[in-house]
């Protein structure tokens, strides 16, 4: 049963990953990335990593990919994709292609080393078994414990990095006029009970509070 599931999921993973690169339309690329990520979460489930599987779907398929779909559906859909532009770019394009091939080859070699080093040892293994108790491998309790004890520093550094990136994103969007000028205005004390943008008729017709 798990072997059948594994092959279905693995096919999904590889087809999805290939589709991301091969497909011309950016929207379909994103969709096949979604297929890839969801199949990957099935593989995690087969490895008894329920928490990672759920987080994979919630965070990647549910949040990151939603944003991708959002952006691509709004601005994408044009016929000339990245590949077309690269092909027509002349010497720079061919240079990029060569560099891409070299980097891709290097990545392949690295991945193969990692795979052959670790994967072949585990191929006969059975994965972690189910056993009662809170410290069972792959459960949220187990991972939570690890994150707050052994990997606390890494965890905190990563969260700070993400916070900085989020703040940076907001700042960059502001510089380019992504957010309107009126957001800069300090809130008047009278408005505090009702923050701006929460709806009055005056706002609805574009007239701000006097």
């Amino acid at each position, binding site marked *: 049963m798990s072997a059948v599931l594994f092959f279905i999921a693995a096919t999904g993973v590889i087809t999805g990953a290939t589709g991301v690169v091969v497909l011309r339309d950016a*929207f379909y690329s994103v*969709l096949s990335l*979604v297929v890839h990520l*969801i199949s990957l*979460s099935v593989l995690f489930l087969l490895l008894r990593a*329920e*928490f990672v*599987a*759920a*987080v994979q*779907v*919630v965070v990647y*398929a*549910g*949040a990151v990919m*939603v*944003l991708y*779909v*959002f952006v691509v*559906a*709004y601005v994408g859909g044009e016929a000339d994709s990245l590949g077309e532009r690269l092909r027509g770019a002349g010497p720079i394009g061919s240079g990029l292609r060569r560099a891409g091939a070299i980097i891709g080859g290097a990545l392949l070699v690295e991945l193969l080393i990692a795979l052959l080093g670790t994967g072949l040892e585990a191929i006969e293994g059975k994965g972690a078994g*189910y056993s*009662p*108790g*809170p410290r*069972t491998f792959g*459960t*949220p*309790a187990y991972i939570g414990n690890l994150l707050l004890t052994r990997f606390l520093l890494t965890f905190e550094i990563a969260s700070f990095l993400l916070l900085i990136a989020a703040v940076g994103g907001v700042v960059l969007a502001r510089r380019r006029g992504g957010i309107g000028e009126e957001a800069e205005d300090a809130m008047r004390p009278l408005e505090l009970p009702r*923050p701006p*943008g*929460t*709806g009055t008729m005056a706002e*609805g017709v574009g007239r701000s509070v006097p």
Partner: protein
Amino acid sequence: MSVGLMSLVGYYEPVWIQILKALVIFAVALQLVPVVLIAERKLLGRFQGRYGPNRVGPYGALQPMADILKLLTKEQFRPTTSVGLLFALAPVISILTAVAAFAIIPFGDVQDIFGTKVGLYGVDVSIGPLYLFAFGAVAFYGIMLGGWSSGSKYSFLGAMRGAAQLISYEVSQGLALLGVIFTAQTLSLTGIVHAQAGMWYIVPQFVGFLIFLVAGFAETNRAPFDLTEADAELVGGYNTEFGGGRFASYYFAEYLNVLVVAGVVTTVFLGGWLLPFGIDPPGWVDPIVVLFKMSLITFLFIWVRATLPRLRYDQLMSFGWKVLLPLATLNALATAVLVVVTH
């Protein structure tokens, strides 16, 4: 039986019981939806001072049957600008995720039925609410692909609103549940019900309950957050171009999602199958208790739909991000501090 063992029940049950349970749960879900349909139409009628459907069958009770039959026998058509494969796939995703999410709602404790131990739920996963959010995340693609593949502006706008709404309110919904999880100290939904034996979480986690309910309205695209459909502006939103069986699938998925939210609220905040004042009925009463509490929440859904006007889009966004999210964060923080102090 201890909570730790409870969460393992799903694994040692024989395969045939799991298959049987899956069929029963699907059948129950399939039967509940027409009941909610007729209840909603009847109640909306009463709220608006009219009778509601009263032609088909006694008291109009067979109206959903007639509706479903009509929808299923209609011709399948699609616009020439649509994308055929995705157009057919989108309603399937919607209905699949709705039924899958229904599987984790516990209708009762582990029962001894003819000498076999059966938990009255589809599966008790150790990741609990995360399972729900995972399928909620996939459900987004049902709406999104439906709107995008229709090749129509109204559908597209509806789907885009759905996307923004979903990611805005999912965060608050998750944070609202955090308070409960801190207090119960388990992610298993049956474990959460067992932890409510003394007091239902609606009392200590009232703010979390309110936030979860409001976010639930938004996640199921129900009024007053039904901007994805917004029939006054977008004809029908993401399902404008759908007809026949496919439209029926979306319809089914929407009402099933309402039932799922009602079931989760029942389980997490209203004590699941537990009765107040220490009444401990025999095991077969449990599903009835859960269904009764679920119908109360569903009634609230219909009541709100009949009462509140639809929000404007910017109101929806600023409410989600500026009111609900800080409130949910504060709630989670306060609960965390309380749990640490009292332990």
